[in-house]
């Protein structure tokens, strides 16, 4: 009898806890726990059949289906091209300025951050087709013909560099040892081999120029393009709420001086 009252009074507590969770996964686990406590109550009321049904449906199946449902919505899904310094894998973890900004933002809006590294052209496609929330990895937004893509406010100023692209030197081979990832550099190398390099890329941002330098490439006739450019995240034009949330977060990050502190930590 006492056990039943304890469990019954536990029900509103568990319900309250799961309702007040900002992280969706925690809320779902709370709901599963609620079902489990309810099943225990049924068991104490001598209704083991109902208890089994409650436990299997409420705690097992529905929880699993909710987990499925939030795999994309409960995560801030970011697709990124790998750019050292901004966002890149270091061993088995991800590091960089953009990664740190995204981590803070995901935490602020109560989502789990999920990052997938994909080739540059896939970044644009995935964001435009709403299969990812944000595109990262040294994105400089220069307009979009279909008008589906937009960008967040800049978080780091950079420069664009034009180059003639008469051929990358053969010591750029280190790309062969790079992880099996079809990315920016492998794309450049493929164009270099086919002799279509100048058609493929006419300008590079600072981070990629530096990265190319790091793997031993020499770009000829490098010249800075006039104008103000900066890194931002790609976002779909229709995701207005996410845009507003992110803009507010970035403003707050900048005002508190934490953005400058992060930039300093990563780039000096």
């Amino acid at each position, binding site marked *: 009898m006492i056990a039943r009252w304890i469990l019954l009074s536990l029900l509103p507590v568990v319900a309250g806890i799961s309702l007040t969770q900002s992280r969706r996964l925690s809320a779902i686990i709370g709901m599963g726990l609620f079902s489990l406590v309810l099943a225990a109550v049924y068991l104490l009321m001598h209704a083991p059949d109902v208890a*089994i*049904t409650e436990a299997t449906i409420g705690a*097992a199946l529905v929880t699993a289906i909710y987990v*499925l449902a939030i795999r994309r919505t409960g995560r801030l899904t970011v697709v990124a091209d790998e750019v050292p310094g901004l966002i890149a894998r270091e061993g088995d973890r991800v590091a960089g300025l953009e990664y740190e900004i995204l981590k803070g933002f995901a935490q602020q809006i109560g989502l789990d951050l999920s990052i997938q590294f994909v080739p540059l052209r896939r970044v644009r496609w995935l964001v435009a087709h709403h299969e990812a929330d944000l595109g990262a990895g040294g994105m400089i937004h220069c307009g979009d013909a279909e008008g589906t893509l937009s960008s967040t406010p800049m978080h780091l100023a950079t420069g664009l560099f034009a180059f003639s692209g008469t051929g990358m030197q053969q010591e750029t081979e280190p790309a062969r040892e790079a992880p099996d990832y079809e990315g920016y550099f492998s794309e450049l190398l493929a164009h270099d081999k086919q002799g279509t390099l100048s058609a493929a890329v006419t300008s590079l941002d600072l981070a990629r120029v530096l990265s190319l330098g790091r793997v031993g490439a020499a770009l000829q006739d490098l010249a800075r393009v006039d104008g103000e450019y900066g890194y931002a995240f790609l976002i779909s034009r229709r995701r207005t709420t996410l845009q507003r949330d992110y803009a507010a977060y970035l403003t707050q990050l900048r005002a508190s001086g934490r953005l400058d502190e992060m930039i300093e930590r990563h780039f000096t």
Partner: protein
Amino acid sequence: MKRHRVRIIAATGIVLAFAILVSIMHLGNAPDPSDSTRYLSRALEETGASNRVAGVYLNYRLLDTLLEVLVFSVAVLGVRHYLQQSEGMELPDLSESEVVRTAVVFLSPLALLLCAFFAILGHISPGGGFAAGVIAASGLLYVAIAHGMGAIEAQLNPGRMARTEETILLALLIFALSPIAFGKLPLSDLLAKGTPGRLLSGGSILVYNILIALKVFVGAWAVIAVFAQHRGEL
């Protein structure tokens, strides 16, 4: 499209024909619903199932249970019908952590074991076909979450699963009506009641439990698989 419409009309026809046929033959025979004490005092003796809940819903109220099973089948049919019109999407795989993958190795066999336990012993201990089927489907869902849908789809094709579900439903309905062939009323017990508490007791309840477990498992899985295909999840 046409084939699906025919299927839906056929399914509705089966449901209606079954409901009308059984109602006519069953109504005169059903115990008085207001006499609930009869369920408690005589269930053991009349059904042979020591789990009296199973005795009530798979013997006295078998008609209700079968209609519930039909409702589930119609739901599965509806989900497949409406989702088949849209194309599936190709998305990058969402990988799951090592913790989840390791947990699944322990959880899934346990789920299958529990499913067999509840289905086979549903008439002597708590459990039953519905819970058993849901447990098995959850077990498979855990595997899918951890290892991706592709691994399972290679073994269990969703289209074939849905056809299997329809076949099991047909078997269930035929079994429910088969007592007619032996000169009994439909939905009445075909098998011996046996000694309560033994595995082979409770008349046809054991067969119903196993069939319902299979049906719910296959049906639930077909729905989950179609959802997964068309949202590209798992």
